[in-house]
C-alpha cells in the first residue's frame, strides 16, 4: 500500500480539529500523557487494517479502542450536546477512508467512499500494531479465548499474536534483511522458534527457553525479529509501535532506532509514540540525510490537543522529554548549591 499522507479529525476523542501530516518514513509522536498519541496511532491502524480481519471499519475501531459501552458515540469529543466526528485518512495514491458519526451513533458510521476497502485488501496483512505490553509470552490459548469469550483486551493484543504466528515467506531473505535479523539475533542471543502455540528463544549457549522466562525486553526484540523474518514488515507495510522503550534497557534503544531506520529505508511507514529521551535522541543522531523522519509534538491547550510537526529534532516544540532533563539538571544544580556550608 502507499503511505499515509494525512489524517483529518474533527471532534474525535481529545481532538477538536486535527490535520496530521505524517512522513512516509518514520513518525515519532511525543507529548505528555493524555494528549492522544496512542489514539491517533490506533485510529490509523484501525482504518488500514480492518479488511485483514474481515471486519467492518466501525467494528475494528470499536475493537481497538474498546469503549464502554461499545458505541462509536463514546469516541466523539466529550462536550455538551450532540456532536459529529469526522475522520478522513488519505494515502499517497489519493485513496481515502472518509467516515463520520455522531455522539448518538452505536455501531454504524456514515461512509463517504466505500471503495477504499477494495484497495486495502491488496495487501491487508501488512499493518502491524505493537502494543505497550508484550504478548507473545501469553500467546498459548489466547487466540481461541479471544475468539470465543468476551475478554476485555483491545484487539491489537490479539492481532499482534496473529501476525507473529505467520510462517516465513518462501525464499532466502535478501542481504539487508539478513543483516537486520542478525543484529537482533546478536542482541537477544538467539532466534525465536514456535512450537504449536508457544514461542521459545533458541539460544546457542542456554538451549531453548520458553518466552515467559525470557526478559521482556528481549521478547520485544524477538517479536521484531519474527515480523522481519516472516516479511510482514516489508515495502509498503505499516508499523505502529506504542512506547517501544518500555522494558528495554536504554542500551538496546540504539538497536531499535537503527532497525526502525533501516525498515524505513525498505519502504515501511512507521509510527512510534514515545516518552523516552534515549530513543528520541538516537533517531536524531543516527538518521541519514536521505532518511524521512518527522517529529510530532502533541500538546494540550485548554480542552483541545494540537500537534506541531517538524523534521528538525531541535524544533520539537514543546519537547516535554528534553524539558524533563532541564528540570532534572536545574534541580541537580539547586541541590549542589544547597550544600553550601553544610
Amino acid at each position: 500500500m502507499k503511505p499515509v499522507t494525512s489524517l483529518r479529525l474533527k471532534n474525535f476523542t481529545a481532538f477538536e480539529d486535527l490535520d496530521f501530516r505524517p512522513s512516509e518514513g518514520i513518525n515519532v509522536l511525543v507529548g505528555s500523557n493524555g494528549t492522544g498519541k496512542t489514539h491517533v496511532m490506533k485510529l490509523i491502524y484501525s482504518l488500514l487494517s480492518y479488511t485483514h480481519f474481515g471486519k467492518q471499519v466501525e467494528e475494528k475501531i470499536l475493537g481497538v479502542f474498546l469503549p464502554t459501552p461499545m458505541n462509536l458515540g463514546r469516541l466523539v469529543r466529550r462536550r455538551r450536546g450532540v456532536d459529529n466526528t469526522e475522520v478522513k485518512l488519505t494515502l499517497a495514491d489519493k485513496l481515502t477512508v472518509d467516515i463520520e458519526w455522531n455522539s448518538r451513533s452505536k455501531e454504524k458510521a456514515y461512509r463517504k467512499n466505500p471503495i477504499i476497502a477494495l484497495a486495502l485488501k491488496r495487501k491487508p496483512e501488512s499493518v502491524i500494531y505493537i502494543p505497550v505490553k508484550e504478548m507473545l509470552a501469553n500467546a498459548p490459548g489466547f487466540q481461541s479465548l479471544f475468539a470465543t469469550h468476551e475478554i476485555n483486551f483491545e484487539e491489537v493484543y490479539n492481532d499482534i499474536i496473529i501476525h507473529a504466528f505467520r510462517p516465513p515467506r518462501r525464499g532466502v531473505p535478501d542481504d539487508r534483511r539478513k543483516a537486520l535479523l542478525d543484529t537482533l539475533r546478536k542482541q537477544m542471543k538467539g532466534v525465536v522458534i514456535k512450537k504449536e502455540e508457544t514461542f521459545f528463544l533458541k539460544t546457542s549457549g542456554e538451549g531453548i527457553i520458553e518466552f515467559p522466562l525470557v526478559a521482556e525486553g528481549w521478547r520485544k526484540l524477538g517479536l521484531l525479529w519474527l515480523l522481519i523474518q516472516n516479511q510482514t514488515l516489508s515495502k509498503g507495510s505499516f508499523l505502529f509501535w506504542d512506547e517501544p522503550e518500555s522494558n528495554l534497557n536504554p542500551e538496546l534503544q540504539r538497536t531499535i532506532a537503527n532497525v526502525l531506520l533501516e525498515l524505513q529505508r525498505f519502504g515501511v511507514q512507521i509510527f512510534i509514540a514515545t516518552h523516552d529521551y534515549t530513543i528520541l535522541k538516537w533517531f536524531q543522531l543516527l538518521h541519514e540525510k536521505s532518511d524521512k523522519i518527522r517529529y510530532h509534538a502533541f500538546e494540550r491547550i485548554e480542552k483541545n490537543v494540537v500537534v506541531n510537526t517538524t523534521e528538525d529534532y531541535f524544533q520539537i516544540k514543546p519537547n516535554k522529554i528534553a524539558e524533563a532533563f532541564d528540570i532534572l539538571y536545574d534541580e541537580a544544580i539547586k541541590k549542589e548549591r544547597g550544600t553550601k556550608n553544610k
Partner: protein
Amino acid sequence: MTYIESKLEFSFSRASEIQHVENGEFGHGLKNVDFLIREIDEVILLEVKGTSQEVTRYLSDDIVNQLVEKARDTYTYLHLIQDTAKQLTYIALIDFRTKEIDSAMLLRRSDALKAGLRGEKGHSWQIEYIQRAFLVDVENFKKEFPNFEVNRVD
C-alpha cells in the same frame, strides 16, 4: 575589570578577589584552573573550556579526568599556601557552541565530574576537598551565577 579566557570575557566586579592563573604558575608540575575567585565565605575554582575542537571530546571521560586533575592540583596549591579555610566550589564552564548539547548530556557529565571528585577521596584520603561542583555551559553559567558576567568575544 574584565578577563579573557578561551574566547570568553569575564567580569567579576562583585567578587572579593580574582586570581587569573597562568599555566605553570603553581609550579612543581601542578595543573591549574583558570581562575581562583576568593569570596567572603568560599573560594571558587573556575575552569573554562572553549570547544574549538570536536564537541563530543568535551563530553568524554578524558575531559572529566582533566577537570578532576586540575581541581586536585589546585587544591594542593591552596593547601601549600595555607588557603583552604574556606569552602571550595568548583565550576567547570564549557562553551559548547552547538545545539547538540542538551540538559541530559550536561547532567550526565556533571554527575561524572562529581563522581570523579568523590573518587579522589580514595582509600587513604580523608577529605572531600571540593564541597560543591558544577558543570555548566555558558547559558547555565549566566543563569546560575548571575554575579559573574560572561560574554563571547568572537
